[in-house]
């Protein structure tokens, strides 16, 4: 164990910090769930790509930087410290990207990874259906083979960013007679294909962060299938592992929130009446630190050849409930002003805490609800009986 950064790691941090200082937009971008904001964020992805900071952990051959996990953590720490824009293509970068690297053909990798890395193609995820939420094996949308094409019919829902994205990665039933997790395949679909209808669904903040996608005889080449026909479930589980695992929610995000929370607390220290706030602030800070420590521990282990398994579920519960707790604490500190939105003319950044508070409500739900994660922990990590 050596909890010191090497001179190279310190130099890397300085390099990241200098680039971000020079390139992060001075004026915050609009929400990526608006058309203008999405365009601004797409442009930011391209700026990142030009500096070769878009996909730091990806291999250089796919437009990445070939960084190891400790360097990735350092990059993320600097990224949130600089308050750089959120990653509009996170579904592509953190979920589909690693899946493509593991299961894609050389042609698929060359075609999709490079354009993801360059910031030219933005991705949405199309897994859930009206009848298939936590129970994803209940998927009914079909992609039926017709020569060199699949003909897709059905409906996806809760597709984040799909209103403005270019592509969606989906799970479809390629064997019409199959049931449950058999007969599913992982298919990449351009969102401008004829027969696709995208219906925006406004989220809690009123912006169309979700979409419902209707497929009506949509044709895509068989070459857009990732992995073997019928292997979709296993690939999706690998993707879900990436989602819950290390990459999607780096600790720096929560440490930055904890730091802002401490500042908010100090600023209001003299007018807080709620007796539980002091404890909640200490807990917030400790837990954000604990999440960082745990991630450094996992990163160190993975770099020595270890694997990540059911502990991904432990992580997902922890960061989502930490985020919720921190924002609840901020709401308690802001007290009567908490309900004010960012547009309200306040002297503090009250409204931005409300933005975060709203988003924090989704954490325990997406990427597999925390109830499902608790079942996974109990059954797979602790060995409790399934039935």
């Amino acid at each position, binding site marked *: *164990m*050596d*909890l*010191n*950064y*090497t001179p190279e*790691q310190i130099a890397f*941090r300085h390099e990241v910090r200098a680039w971000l200082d020079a390139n992060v937009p001075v004026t915050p971008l609009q929400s990526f769930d608006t058309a203008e904001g999405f365009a601004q964020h797409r442009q930011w992805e391209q700026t990142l790509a030009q500096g070769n900071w878009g996909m730091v952990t990806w291999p250089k051959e796919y437009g990445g930087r070939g960084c190891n996990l*400790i360097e990735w953590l*350092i990059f*993320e*720490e*600097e990224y*949130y*410290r600089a308050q750089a824009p959120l990653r509009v293509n996170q579904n592509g970068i953190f979920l589909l990207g690693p899946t493509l690297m593991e299961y894609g053909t050389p042609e698929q990798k060359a075609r999709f990874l490079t354009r993801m890395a360059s910031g030219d193609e933005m991705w949405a995820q199309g897994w859930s259906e009206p009848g298939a939420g936590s129970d994803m094996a209940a998927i009914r949308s079909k992609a039926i083979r017709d020569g060199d094409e699949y003909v897709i019919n059905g409906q996806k829902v809760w597709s984040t960013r799909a209103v403005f994205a270019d592509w969606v990665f989906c799970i479809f039933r390629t064997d019409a007679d199959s049931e449950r997790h058999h007969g599913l395949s992982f298919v990449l679909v351009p969102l401008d294909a004829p027969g696709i209808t995208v219906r925006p669904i406004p989220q809690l903040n009123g912006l169309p962060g979700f979409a419902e996608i209707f497929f009506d005889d949509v044709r895509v080449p068989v070459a857009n299938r990732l992995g073997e026909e019928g292997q979709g479930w296993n690939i999706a589980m690998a993707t879900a592992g990436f989602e819950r695992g290390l990459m999607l929610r780096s*600790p*720096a995000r929560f*440490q*930055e929130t904890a*730091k802002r929370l*401490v500042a908010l*607390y*100090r600023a209001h*220290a003299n007018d807080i009446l709620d007796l539980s706030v*002091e*404890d909640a*602030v*200490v807990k917030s*800070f*400790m*837990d954000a*630190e*604990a*999440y*960082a*420590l*745990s991630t*450094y*521990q996992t*990163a*160190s*282990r993975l770099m*020595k050849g270890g694997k990540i398994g059911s*502990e991904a579920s*432990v992580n997902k*519960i*922890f960061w989502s409930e930490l985020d919720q707790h921190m924002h609840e604490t901020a709401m308690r500190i802001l007290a009567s002003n908490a309900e004010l939105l960012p547009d309200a003319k306040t002297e503090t950044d009250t409204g931005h805490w409300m933005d975060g508070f709203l988003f924090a409500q989704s954490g325990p739900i997406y990427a597999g609800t925390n*109830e499902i*994660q*608790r*079942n996974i*922990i*109990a*059954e797979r*990590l*602790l*060995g*409790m*009986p399934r*039935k």
Partner: protein
Amino acid sequence: MDFTFSDDQRVFCDNVKQFLHSEVTPERLRSGWDSASGRDDTLWQQMVDLGLPAMLVPEAFGGLGMNELDFVLLAQECGRVALAEPLVETALVATPLLACQAERDTRCASLLEKIATGERRVAVGHAVNPTVSDAHVADYLLLPNGNEFHLVERERVKLIPMQSVDPSRRLFKVEWRPEEETRLVNGAPGVAALAATLNRGALGAAAQLIGLAEAMVEMTVQYTTDRTQFGRAIGSNQALKHHMANCAVKTEFAKPALYRAAYTVSQRPVHADFAVSHAKVAAGEAALLAAKNCIQSHGAMGYTWECNLHIWMKRAWALDKFWGHSGFHKNRLHQWLMNPNAKIGADKTFGEQG
């Protein structure tokens, strides 16, 4: 940057773990409750033969010359078996304190050598603890007096037994008079020794709390797998699964805090307060939640003297409050967070906090 234990550290821990699991059984713990001293001299000598009480004693004084980080996994295992013998307090708290004074105080040097051979034993007091544990089997006591530590022969103090809810714990109020000749350290070095002792004590308690929490969850998973109601294992019910999963989440995120604390105590002791308090609070919460959810999952059986669960629960309830209760440690964290000069930020996780 490498946040993993070495192969040597893991192998050493595994060996001790096997030893503890074969020697320290619930039956042996229970038999200690009825004996006068509550302590098992045979077991202590076995641990001495393995070099355990003197792990942190410098090699020059007959020890293994290891540090707090080398010991922390072992302390976790001591908790896992609910070891009654004061191995953690001796190896992690008493001997490092003596070792700090050994260069200029021959009493400490000779005592360390005798601790290594098993001829002598030492107990430690501190202002955060109202009692001294295992003072009755110690030949010497390390006792605080203001900014001083004194090394006092047990014959020269009066021990008043205080009964703990945990029948394995043996606690004493100590009546004694500080003398010039018993004083070991004072002034600034005395303050430093008191602070370092507190951190080592809290680190040891935190490590044991993690082991206790994991052991309680393990025995409860077993119980809820074996016990059937309505024709199926009660552990197949989601409510019980979530009880156990919540314990696992708490424990998994207390562990890295514990390991950072052990590293910081061994490598950057003057910056260890924050890391130690974090570890102690997190480990205490993990152990208390495990106790609560495990007794609930055991049903009426968990509320009996016969069921072994209470051996672990009571130790958890006790150690959560020993070497600084949660209020003490949360206040240290709070004071630090309120300090305008506190270095806060993601790039400071391993830096000079506290």
